[in-house]
């Protein structure tokens, strides 16, 4: 499939009084037309900073894209001037933010906020803008759209506001939609509605979605492909099935294992990841996950692992994939899923060989 956005060796730093925080430390991925790529990670992993860098929304100072390129339609977004970027931001690439309570302007009517982008990018005014706004409100499932035009954000519920935010993002038919934790602030039933809406819109418009989240349930529901971030780096990427049924990085194992499942035995402790993420003011030597990794080997503390290729679509940055690494058994929850859905995979077969857990 055709690649629409290509990020190569992206590095983003923030210059603070305490020193330079290396928030993103060499991230590469491609986004293909019409797909949903989920970027997963904890707070501070660099997932939001990556998406803001694509939108060129990193405040400078203190932030700075120090290396890498972001190729979109033959242009390197990392090097565009603010004036050139204005033409792309909101038109070709649009963003949905986490908190619908703060991402709307409380002093502007719904109509004005949606029509702002229409006027800016498509020159639509008057009746044309109104017609298109009503179309958008209908598309995002807002009942009685005519009556909403003159309303203000505070008159709407959280789920309705997030629909407005989505309508604004969709106003100019973007080719890439970046959704930064769009459902984290919402209740599960509202979350389900918004996820269904995004999938529905993707089918109708063919937009590619970068979906940023820490909720692996949402990832399983939404994503075609998944990229896992830790401490400013991509540690594993693959198709959604590869990441959930044949994960190779111990951090991915930890994330998947620490989510309770309805079938879990309540008398057993949840397999938590010990410790806390590293301070990116001074990233650790070697693999940043090593201090929290029960599978860490000596080399993990000395040398950063390269990206090992597992399949055409699956990559992971862990020394465990080195041909000389000893065989290990992943945590039980990971083994169970692999044996259930991918009993014939090389990954599932490697369990029986034994090795330390």
């Amino acid at each position, binding site marked *: 499939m055709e690649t629409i956005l290509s990020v190569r060796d992206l590095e983003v730093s923030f210059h603070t009084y305490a020193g330079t925080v290396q928030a993103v430390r060499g991230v590469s991925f491609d986004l293909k037309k019409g797909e949903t790529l989920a970027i997963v990670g*904890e*707070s501070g992993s660099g997932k939001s900073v990556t998406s803001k860098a694509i939108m060129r929304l990193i405040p400078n100072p203190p932030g700075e894209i120090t290396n890498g390129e972001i190729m979109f339609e033959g242009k390197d977004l990392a090097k565009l001037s603010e004036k050139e970027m204005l033409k792309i931001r909101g038109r070709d690439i649009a963003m949905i933010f986490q908190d619908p309570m703060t991402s709307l302007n409380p002093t502007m009517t719904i109509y004005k906020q949606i029509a702002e982008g229409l006027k800016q990018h498509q020159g639509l005014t008057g009746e044309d803008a109104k017609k298109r706004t009503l179309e958008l409100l209908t598309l995002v499932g807002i009942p009685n759209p005519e009556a909403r035009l003159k309303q203000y954000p505070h008159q709407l519920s959280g789920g309705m506001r997030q629909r407005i935010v989505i309508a604004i993002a969709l106003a100019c038919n973007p080719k890439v939609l970046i959704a930064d934790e769009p459902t984290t602030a919402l*209740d*599960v*039933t*509202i*979350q*389900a509605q918004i*996820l*269904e809406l995004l999938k529905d819109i993707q089918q109708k418009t063919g937009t590619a979605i970068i979906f940023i989240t*820490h*909720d*692996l*349930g*949402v*990832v*399983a*529901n939404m994503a075609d492909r998944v990229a896992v971030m830790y401490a400013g780096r991509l540690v594993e990427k693959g198709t*959604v*099935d590869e990441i*959930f*049924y044949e994960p190779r990085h111990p951090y991915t194992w*930890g*994330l*998947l294992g*620490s*989510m*309770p*499942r*309805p079938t*879990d035995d*309540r008398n057993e*402790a*949840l*397999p*938590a*990841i*010990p410790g*806390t993420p590293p301070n990116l003011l001074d990233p650790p030597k070697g693999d940043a996950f090593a201090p929290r990794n029960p599978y860490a080997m000596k080399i993990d503390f000395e040398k950063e692992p390269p990206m090992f290729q597992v399949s055409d679509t699956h990559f992971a940055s862990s020394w465990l994939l080195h041909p000389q690494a000893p065989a290990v058994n992943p945590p039980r929850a990971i083994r169970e*899923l692999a044996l259930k*859905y991918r009993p014939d995979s090389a990954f599932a077969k490697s369990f029986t060989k034994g090795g330390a857990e």
Partner: protein
Amino acid sequence: MEREKLLEVKNLKQHFKIGRGRVVKAVDGISFDIYKGEVLGLVGESGCGKSTTGRTIIGLYDATDGDVVFKGENVHEKKSKADKLKFNRAMQMIFQDPYASLNPRMTVADIIAEGIDIHGLAKTKEDRMNRVYDLLETVGLTKEHASRYPHEFSGGQRQRIGIARALAVEPDFIIADEPISALDVSIQAQVVNLMKELQRDRDLTYLFIAHDLSMVKYISDRIGVMYQGHLVELATADRLYENPIHAYTKSLLSAIPLPDPEHERTRKRIVYESTSKGPVGRSDEDSSIPPLREVEPGHYVSLTDEEYEAYKAQLV
């Protein structure tokens, strides 16, 4: 075996006045018991009244109506200072936001020891500090943390401080109001494991309020589902998941995405069409819902006569 009831909530109501004779019926007549040594989970969407229930039980709000009976004594009638002290020592709370619930101008030692001071549990300064150190170690922090301030800690560590503060007065019962929802996934599991461990070691009883149903299922013995100020279903954690009966419970359970793509591809969401008028109204208006019926031992559901007949018919 008859289990000992630690807490009985009887027809508890909490109405907030919003002017012009209208009220928000945040909690509107709910009743349940909590047995000694169990974890009762309380789930529902934001605005369903689950947090208000917790805060009313512990007395942060004065209940509009109803009784809270703790260890056989009606706690909201107690007005003498000594009675209140005794009650406050037995019942503690862990709050949702570990950033807002710790005083930024107090050291960790003073935050944890505040309860020890109020109840005069430490005889000497040394005793006081030893208790603080013990508590810090219990929750997975170290002695060295005692002299620091809250801003020096991460969210997960702060929540541990909040837990240490609650444990300081050796309570029997802890109300945990969304204690993990502000934390990262990998840290959530750490805190939940800690809470379970403490419960076993110290014979604690929890009311665990949350909207993350997977986590609630994992930590709770029984779960109550709240909707618009009412308790609509109450059952053991396993039965609630295996056999949800109320339409709202079904819709809630069917909306949770699980970390399993195959499951997600086939999951069908059930939509709940509410018939209730919502929580805002005049205080004299009746917004009651059908009574809770025991449909199987220990499994209570709010059903109308017709729904109950339909449920029984479907069993045969």
